[in-house]
């Protein structure tokens, strides 16, 4: 493989990784606060793909993007309110099952509404413009994805570090019960968390699907699971960890595909997960916690 091809693949990998990172943040935030693997997160990401297709059919792209972001965010909040909130006190397995149920519902609903046939993802003209540097060529979205990811993460970190809501979020994720006793409005914080997660998933969705060109009702499942792995890899509950994890998985996956092991690229992700859980269950940057007897 020539140097250019390698670089080209790295660029693709970084771009994919950026989208993964954005989705992974949603997992890590929700898990940090509710200790829930939000199995429906990947499907929210998929739905965002469809929202974009339909809004772009009747609106100019800036409006379409705005609509997609808003609708996805609202959907994320609504899912939490309807399917997770009633189960706050229930055993952990119940809420996980509810999440799987939502994922199942979203997939079936979108199969019903949009059929299982892949839908072409519309081209947003400025994202598709091709850049050339020497032998390397890249569409604008490839370059934009990692940059936008970094910018969004920095903004998010600042919000969490500086604002009152951010402080409350940190408190809730540290100790749910105590935070409740201290008078923090848990429901509001959980909603904010889902809003942020879904918003980032919508951004990730636009970037991801622009490169992939089509959406099906099942497009969210595997990327969703991979991003959860990314979150675990980086240390669940830890935002920079999720970003590192997202980039890492994106790059390795792209390289594996480039080397002709495309069917193993999914297996690799899960192998990484299992190895990580065994060697360092708290992830790269996670903190250790011992269960009290």
């Amino acid at each position, binding site marked *: 493989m020539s140097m250019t091809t390698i670089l080209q693949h790295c660029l693709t990998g970084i771009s994919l990784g950026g989208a993964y990172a954005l989705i992974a943040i949603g997992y890590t935030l929700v898990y940090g606060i509710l200790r829930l693997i939000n199995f429906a997160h990947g499907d929210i990401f998929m739905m965002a793909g469809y929202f974009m297709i339909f809004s772009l059919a009747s609106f100019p792209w800036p409006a379409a993007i705005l609509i997609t972001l808003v609708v996805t965010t609202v959907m994320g909040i609504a899912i939490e309110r309807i399917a997770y909130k009633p189960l706050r006190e229930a055993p952990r397995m119940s809420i996980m099952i*509810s999440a799987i149920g939502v994922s*199942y519902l979203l997939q079936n609903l979108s199969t019903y509404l949009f059929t299982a046939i892949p839908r072409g993802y519309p081209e947003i003209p400025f994202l598709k413009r091709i850049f050339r540097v020497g032998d390397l060529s890249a569409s604008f979205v490839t370059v934009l994805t990692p940059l936008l990811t970094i910018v969004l993460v920095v903004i998010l970190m600042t919000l969490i570090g500086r604002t009152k809501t951010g402080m409350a979020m940190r408190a809730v994720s540290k100790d749910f019960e105590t935070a409740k006793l201290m008078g923090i409005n848990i429901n509001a914080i959980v909603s904010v968390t889902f809003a942020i997660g879904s918003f980032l998933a919508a951004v990730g969705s636009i970037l991801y699907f622009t490169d992939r060109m089509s959406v099906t009702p099942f497009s969210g499942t595997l990327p969703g699971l991979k991003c959860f792995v990314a979150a675990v890899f980086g240390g669940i509950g830890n935002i920079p960890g999720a970003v590192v994890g997202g980039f890492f998985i994106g790059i390795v996956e792209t390289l594996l595909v480039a080397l002709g092991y495309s069917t193993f690229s999914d297996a690799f992700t*899960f192998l990484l997960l299992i190895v990580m859980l065994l060697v360092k269950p708290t992830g790269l940057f996670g903190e250790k916690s011992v269960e009290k007897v």
Partner: protein
Amino acid sequence: MKKKISKPTIYSLGALALFVAFLYWLDANRLTQGMVISVLQKGAILALVATSMNLLNGFTGLFSLGQAGFMSIGAYTTAILIIPVKNLDGVYYMNGVHPAIKALRVVMAQAPPFMQTIFPFVALLLGATIAALVALVVGLAVLRLKSDYLAIATLGLSEIVRSIFSSPQFDQITNGSYGLNKIPNFPPMFFGLIPSLITPFIITGVCVAFIVLLINSSYGRAFKAIREDEIAAEAMGISLYKHKEMSFVISSFFSAIAGGMLAMYMRSIEAKTFSITLTYDILLIVVIGGIGSVTGSVVSAFLVTAAKEWWLRFFDQPLSLFGFEVPLFRTGFRMVIFSILLMIVVLIYRKGLFGTNEFSWTWLTSKKARRKP
């Protein structure tokens, strides 16, 4: 001393006899009862996986989502061992069949006819044993993980198995993304005394009976203790590692048997058949039946299969009432209704059909009595 047979036993035997009679009737009328047969057979297969998943999730408290993976091990092993030799080259037309498999199958084909009738069962057992061994090794690693991590790790495992089966590197064994077809249907049992149509019910019956006996044994009680409180169970001298491993291996064993049966039922399999969705489908059966109830899983497996593949079919057909096209009815609507029903169970009727109870005749009659004001 002569044992007195209790009334519930008589009822149960009676119900069983009726069901067997019904199955023989179905066999006699199999040309006209295709839908009923297909639903019941699939129900029986799913009843076995659901029960084995319940053994883990409901009785041992291990939230595992690896069922599809273990089923695929059973399905592929069975399929490779029972596709008729004369069809092998046709099935593997793209990349050819692996010489070792070919050689083995040729040797098997020369065995006496009596052996031939046993091979399908040997194949099921072999697939299940391989799955159990995989579970044994993997269990060493993943069973240490806490609930949700275990779920995602087993889900991941199942995906790993699937991508191995569909990878071009194993083309000559699994036929890669083309999958395997021309798999023979269920074999008859006892020299045809039990027609092939009834075989899956017998297999499921035997396996579920084993699981029920296990659950009610001392080991089963230890599993329940782990489900209730790991730390207390460990303090009572129950080795978490040993018992979790037992439950995981046994559950995987039976999932693989069901997987093998699924291959015989579907007649053709591909790696996609065993995707995460399959595990979710099974989990939903367990949830609807009641996590921690074997009868719940069995009943729910039949109900869900019948509803999905038969009763709710009309949702997918365009419907016109008094000359109006009712707008919602078209392909996919059935699954939407089904998912909504499921969410209702999850959110409102959280115990499912049976909760953690088992069906019993006294329970049925007392429930009736209670309902009267």
